């Protein structure tokens, strides 16, 4: 039914289409593809009755029973017509079990088309863009830009009027929210309203485009397309210590107005095309930030296959605007991509893998060697040790990177080891840590798992951020610090992963060469638990006596160590314990073998603390020694290996393109060169359409990731082509495109429409007005803090994680590493994006799933949104901050508060009725600060505050 509606809607937009000539691509193809191509299209594996309707030659030839599906000019002789109109359910097509039936109008379209000769024309997106002459319009004064000529021409054809221009206050609010994701300040609004020069708005646009916060807003748009996240998802939800570098690269690129073709090339093949360019290398982070299923017992090759799948699907959706993904299991049913061609695209990426580099650009290790490391854990220990010894280079490498003692792996400590200011922070952290241990809810040792992470999060945060402290003997501070880190590091457990793997497999007591042999019971640390130590069976808190000093706790016996620590009573005792532990750590001989590997593996598993990210490597694409052999996989299943294929591009969209003379380490460069070429039919159109959607809420093509046959057709095809060509001519400059769009009358219309217009153009496909739309989750978050005056506009860096309470974390299997309240004030684009746990406020406001490329976010209305804005503690806290600001700026004059509040929140003057209402509200509540806070909360809960209009 939805296709029926969609095609009717489209038909209604094609004036007189039915009366005049049927256009195959516009009118017929959508009907055939939605209803017939599943069984009678390109995909040979599901083809029924050997009938293929997508090729004219075949559709007009007799079938085995002698009937001819389509007889041009003679609908009544065409089997297709008799089948779609058959009374008999068994005869009738499409068959009853299909979700959709053909509508009368669709049947008529097919009849008329056959009557008119059943001509096949190319799908619009595969036809080269043409620069159409600017259409003539009757009201050239309105049409101030080329864009307006296309829009107005169409409106005049339909005898519709564009909405009047928006007010200046509306306009600057629209432009500022649009480009920066933040509301304009009262000062900016005042200046623009007062500026009577003809280029006043152009100056505003220039100012906004020059702001570094533009990149945060438009970069976030791109991060949707790039399915960006900071973790891999699934149970392990591997934390990506490197993802933020790609995020920052995106923001920087938008701010720099990096030519978009270059931006594309860098992401696909920055390493191949621009060697030595740090930013270009980071750009391939696009491909190292996808979902990862990495758990024990996986089928060999699955990880690589998943990565190749993600690479091809993301590339297709993001840059080419085609659903390559559909061709993984079978030939694409609608678009010209065969299953073979899909795997040829995988072969393009099969020469590459994800590699880790240090910040200074040195290759540290790659996933292949890490996997080898993991394998080692799974083999006998003796053999593992021998293997490592036979590979001294790698061992040295790991040692150097990971360090011997923990002091080496934590730059925080390394850099600030003598920074005595931190002493106090640590003292306070210890208090938190004690509390964490004592809030044991179940009364048994299993609870340690629950209490530990919170405590160490607070501790780490405190460590990092507290600044005021009395001086302390430097060496003691250093020991203390090392002790704390040692305490927190789950890998202090000597059994660790290696022992666990062995124990799990063989169910034996501690491994032969374990330092812990004889020191205590062994216990398992399965990989699937993210490395969290688990206590020995039957262990109880207090099993280790308080009298036991840290010196006596065997180095690395993590569990016993914690139990001892927990049992200590005074803070001084705890302090001494940690100092002793630190001394022991530093004095300890450089560990042998597996300890370093454990650290490396833990790094890989992403269980290192969030704060340690700066020490984490950069993960980007580089080349394998040998490209992976790429097979066609039957039904997309790794068990069904088919033919081996080499790299290639789909023939239809890249005719004649060959990889014959392209070396393996230039495959992505070739792909990038083709995608980001001025000649490419799709790329520039896809990009300008995205930009249009980012400005207006809807694109000219309303399926931004699908320009194929099943996607929607452009509402203004000539305009789309004009924009694409203008974009390329202006060096793929997005900022140029922003100016072109925003300076048009179309962008500057008011958000009004009378009922007659709404009836004729309900979805604003004709652009009769500016269609208002709700702000995205991040904009709401930022707007609230912006008007409250509590937004920290610091750019870039590690993700932040605003603290969440227990209920907000329902469903979260791993820990949420809460940031400090100060950090939580940063813009929403910096908030940690986990794939297996969605930040609750954003979840309510339609955050994309970040699993596959998202071209357009849903905008839904659900009561969770109202509940969030009414009752989330952050809202009241921010309302109070906003109230403070208002009272301060009005010198406490209650009568001046509403007008000031309106200026900030809505960017306009307050109406008389509104003012009366607000004053009545304040007076009824006693007119104190609390009343103003409530007023501010009411404002946060208005539609006007969270709408772009």
């Amino acid at each position, binding site marked *: 039914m*939805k*296709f029926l509606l969609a095609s009717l*809607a489209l038909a209604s937009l094609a004036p007189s289409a039915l009366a005049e000539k049927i256009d195959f691509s516009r009118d017929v193809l959508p009907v055939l593809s939605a209803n017939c191509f599943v069984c009678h299209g390109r995909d040979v594996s599901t083809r029924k009755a050997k009938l293929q309707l997508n090729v004219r030659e075949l559709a007009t030839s007799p079938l085995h029973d002698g009937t001819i599906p389509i007889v041009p000019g003679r609908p009544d002789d065409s089997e297709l017509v008799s089948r779609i109109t058959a009374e008999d359910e068994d005869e009738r097509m499409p068959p009853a079990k*299909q*979700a959709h039936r053909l509508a009368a109008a669709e049947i008529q379209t097919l009849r008329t088309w056959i009557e008119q000769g059943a001509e096949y024309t190319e799908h619009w997106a595969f036809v080269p863009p043409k620069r159409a002459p600017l259409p003539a319009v009757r009201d050239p004064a309105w049409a101030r830009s080329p864009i307006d000529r296309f829009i107005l021409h169409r409106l005049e054809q339909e005898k519709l009027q564009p909405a009047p221009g928006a007010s200046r206050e509306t306009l600057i609010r629209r432009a500022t929210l649009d480009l920066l994701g933040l509301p304009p300040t009262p000062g900016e609004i005042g200046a623009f309203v007062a500026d009577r020069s003809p280029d006043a708005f152009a100056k505003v646009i220039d100012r906004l485009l020059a702001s570094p916060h533009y990149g945060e807003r438009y970069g976030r748009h791109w991060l949707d397309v790039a399915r960006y996240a900071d973790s891999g*998802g*699934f*149970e392990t939800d591997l934390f990506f210590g490197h993802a933020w570098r790609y995020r920052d690269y995106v923001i920087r690129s938008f701010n720099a107005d990096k030519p978009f073709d270059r931006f594309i090339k860098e992401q696909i093949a920055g390493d191949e095309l621009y060697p030595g360019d740090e930013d270009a290398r980071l750009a391939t982070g696009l491909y190292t930030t996808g979902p990862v299923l990495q*758990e*024990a*017992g*996986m*089928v060999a090759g699955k990880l690589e296959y998943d990565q190749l799948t993600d690479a091809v699907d993301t590339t297709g959706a993001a840059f080419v605007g085609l659903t390559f*993904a*559909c061709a993984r299991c079978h030939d694409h049913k609608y678009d010209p991509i065969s299953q073979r061609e899909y795997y040829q695209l995988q072969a393009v990426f099969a020469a590459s893998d994800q590699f880790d580099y240090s910040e200074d650009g040195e290759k540290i290790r790659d996933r292949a060697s890490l996997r080898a490391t993991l394998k080692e854990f799974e083999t006998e220990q003796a053999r593992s040790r021998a293997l490592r010894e036979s590979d001294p280079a790698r061992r040295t490498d790991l040692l150097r990177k990971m360090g011997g003692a923990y002091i080496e792996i934590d730059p925080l400590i390394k850099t600030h080891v003598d920074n005595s200011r931190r002493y106090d922070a640590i003292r306070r952290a210890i208090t938190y840590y004690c509390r964490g241990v004592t809030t044991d809810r179940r009364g048994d040792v299993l609870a340690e798992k629950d209490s530990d992470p919170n405590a160490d999060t607070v501790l780490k945060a405190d460590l990092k951020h507290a600044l005021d402290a009395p001086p302390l003997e430097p060496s003691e501070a250093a020991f203390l610090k090392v002790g704390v880190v040692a305490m927190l590091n789950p890998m202090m457990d000597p059994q660790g992963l290696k022992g666990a793997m062995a124990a*799990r497999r063989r169910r034996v007591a501690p491994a032969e060469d374990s330092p812990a042999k004889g020191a205590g019971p062994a216990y398992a640390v399965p990989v699937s638990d993210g490395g969290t130590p688990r206590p020995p069976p039957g262990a109880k808190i207090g099993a280790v006596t308080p009298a036991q000093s840290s010196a006596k706790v065997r180095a690395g016996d993590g569990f016993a160590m914690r139990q001892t620590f927990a049992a200590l009573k005074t803070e001084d005792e705890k302090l001494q314990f940690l100092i002793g532990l630190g001394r022991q750590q530093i004095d300890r001989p450089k560990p042998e073998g597996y300890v370093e590997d454990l650290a490396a593996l833990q790094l890989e598993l992403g269980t290192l603390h969030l704060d340690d990210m700066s020490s984490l490597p950069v993960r980007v694409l580089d080349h394998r020694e040998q490209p992976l052999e790429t097979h066609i996989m039957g039904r997309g299943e790794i068990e069904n290996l088919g033919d081996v294929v080499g790299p290639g591009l789909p023939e239809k969209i890249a005719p004649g393109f060959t990889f014959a003379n392209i070396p393996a380490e230039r495959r992505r460069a070739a792909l990038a060169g083709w995608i980001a070429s001025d000649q490419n039919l799709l790329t520039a159109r896809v990009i300008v359409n995205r930009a249009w959607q980012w400005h207006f809420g*809807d694109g000219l093509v309303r399926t931004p990731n*699908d320009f194929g046959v*099943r*996607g929607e057709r452009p509402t203004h095809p000539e305009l789309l082509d004009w924009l694409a060509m203008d974009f390329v001519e202006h060096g793929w400059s997005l900022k140029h495109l922003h100016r072109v769009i925003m300076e048009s009358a179309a962008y500057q219309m008011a*958000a*009004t*429409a009378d*009922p007659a217009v709404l*009836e004729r153009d*309900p*979805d604003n496909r004709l652009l009769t007005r500016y269609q*208002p739309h709700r702000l995205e989750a991040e904009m709401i978050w930022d707007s609230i803090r912006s008007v409250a005056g509590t937004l920290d506009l610091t750019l870039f860096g590690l993700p932040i994680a605003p603290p969440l309470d227990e*209920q*907000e974390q*329902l*469903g*979260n*299997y791993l820990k949420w590493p809460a940031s400090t309240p100060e950090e939580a004030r940063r813009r929403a684009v910096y908030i940690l994006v986990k794939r*297996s746990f969605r930040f609750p406020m954003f*979840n309510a406001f*339609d955050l994309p*799933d970040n*699993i*596959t490329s998202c071209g357009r976010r*849903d905008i839904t*209305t*659900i*009561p*969770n949104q*109202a*509940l*969030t804005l*009414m009752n989330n503690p952050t809202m009241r806290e921010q309302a109070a901050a906003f109230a403070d600001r208002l009272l301060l700026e009005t010198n406490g004059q209650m009568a001046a508060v509403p007008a000031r509040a309106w200026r900030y929140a809505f960017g306009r003057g307050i*109406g008389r009725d509104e003012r009366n209402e*607000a004053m009545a509200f304040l007076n*009824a509540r006693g007119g104190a600060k609390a009343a103003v806070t*409530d007023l501010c909360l*009411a*404002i946060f*809960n*208005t*539609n*006007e505050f969270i709408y772009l*209009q």
Partner: protein
Amino acid sequence: MPHPHRCPGPFGRPAPSPASLSRRHWITNVAGGMGAWALLSLLERDGCAAALAPAISDITAGRRINPLAAKPPHFPAKAKSVIFLMMAGGPSQMETFDPKPVLNRLAGQRMPDSFGKIPAQFTDVTKELLLGCKIPFRACGQSGLPISAAFPQLQQHADKLAVIRSCHHDAFNHSPAQYEIMTGMSRLGYPSLGAWITYGLGSVSDNLPAIVVMTDPDGKIKGGTPLWGNGFLPAIYQGAPLQTQGTPILYVNREAGVTADSQRQVLDLSQSLNQRHARNISAAAQELDARIASYELAYRMQTAAPEAVDINRESPETRKLYGVDAEPTRDFGTRCLIARRLVERGVRFVQLISGSGDTKDWDHHDDAYEGTMRQAKKVDQPIAALLTDLEKCGLLEETLVVWSGEFGRTPTSQGGKGRDHNPNGYTIWMAGGGVKGGKAIGATDEIGLRAVEDKMHVNDTHATILSLLGLDHHKLTYLFQGREMRLTDVGGQNDLARRLIV
């Protein structure tokens, strides 16, 4: 999508047919802008919203139509709501509902080669020794359905249970397997079963979420929030995690110190501003009206949600039945009792999760006997009580109760007493919702390694559940990335509904 059909309009007039007048037009003009949502609600209650069933394009565009409007099923339904009992970790089929005498006989030996090989997570089944089941089975009820002694109370309900012993899928790690069970796919990003059902049928509750999830009190579950996510469906179809005490639904409680009156005044002010705004912004009037209505719904939820979870309103007998005042049944009993209260209040899908997928709950790598006995003690009485209570309230006939883990376990041992993951054969059961109990469908091989008879892929299980709800899994589709997505992907051919209801 259901086919629109004619039905009497709100004032006894026939509603205009969609062909002659667009829905949007109808709503705008008949409902007159403001209150369209409220009117829709009235229509829904009268079962007359068919003509108004939203088009997907309306929903995704966030436009003005209530996407939760109750919709008629594709064909007459047996069940109206679902309580899905998920035992996270993967209970053993051999210790629960799939007796394997041959396995017991072969215990201690290597698995005969004839059974072949399966991938497991940690062990190689061809190298480990077969592990017998120490828990006795008993033929129960009139039907003689065998149920193990781990579930003594459920044994009393044997004639209500239809046990399906031939379930299988392809994911042998916890989180992908949990996604299989709840979304039909082992990958991330797909809508949950509850989301699909609500998308198909809409909601009948005015003031509670359509999909409610209750985890263990610590809120941890390996698959995380995607297990009740909306995936690519609009956010309105996301499940709401519910706590059994304190604030039942996130942000549903007013902050400390804020009275209902005080909040109402704040809301009145914002609603007044909202209404003025909606009049000015005519291009989005309906969407803005829907937002205004959503605030009223949210406001009502603040009363309705705490009421729904307040089991203090239940009689002492009922509380005792579920074991909510005793260990180890307290947690799960409370959730089962709340599940009944939710279904009573029109919640469409209740997803009740026991455990997180750890060895401390249903993941019995260490000891299948001890683990099963320990966990069953927590859920046996509550589940039996739920069936008794639903029946007593007359709700069992229209409430489908499903019991499932994310996979089964190997017949071979892991470490002597435990069992490894095994998605090649596992058992689920269904009760209520038109299902006739006292039978076992399908079978695993003689040792329980893999499903061999009437094989039920998870897609088939979902097709069956949809079928019982009156939904055709072929027709319940949503266009995403150029493809008509289904809960059952390209599977679901083995719809067992017909065999379950006779």
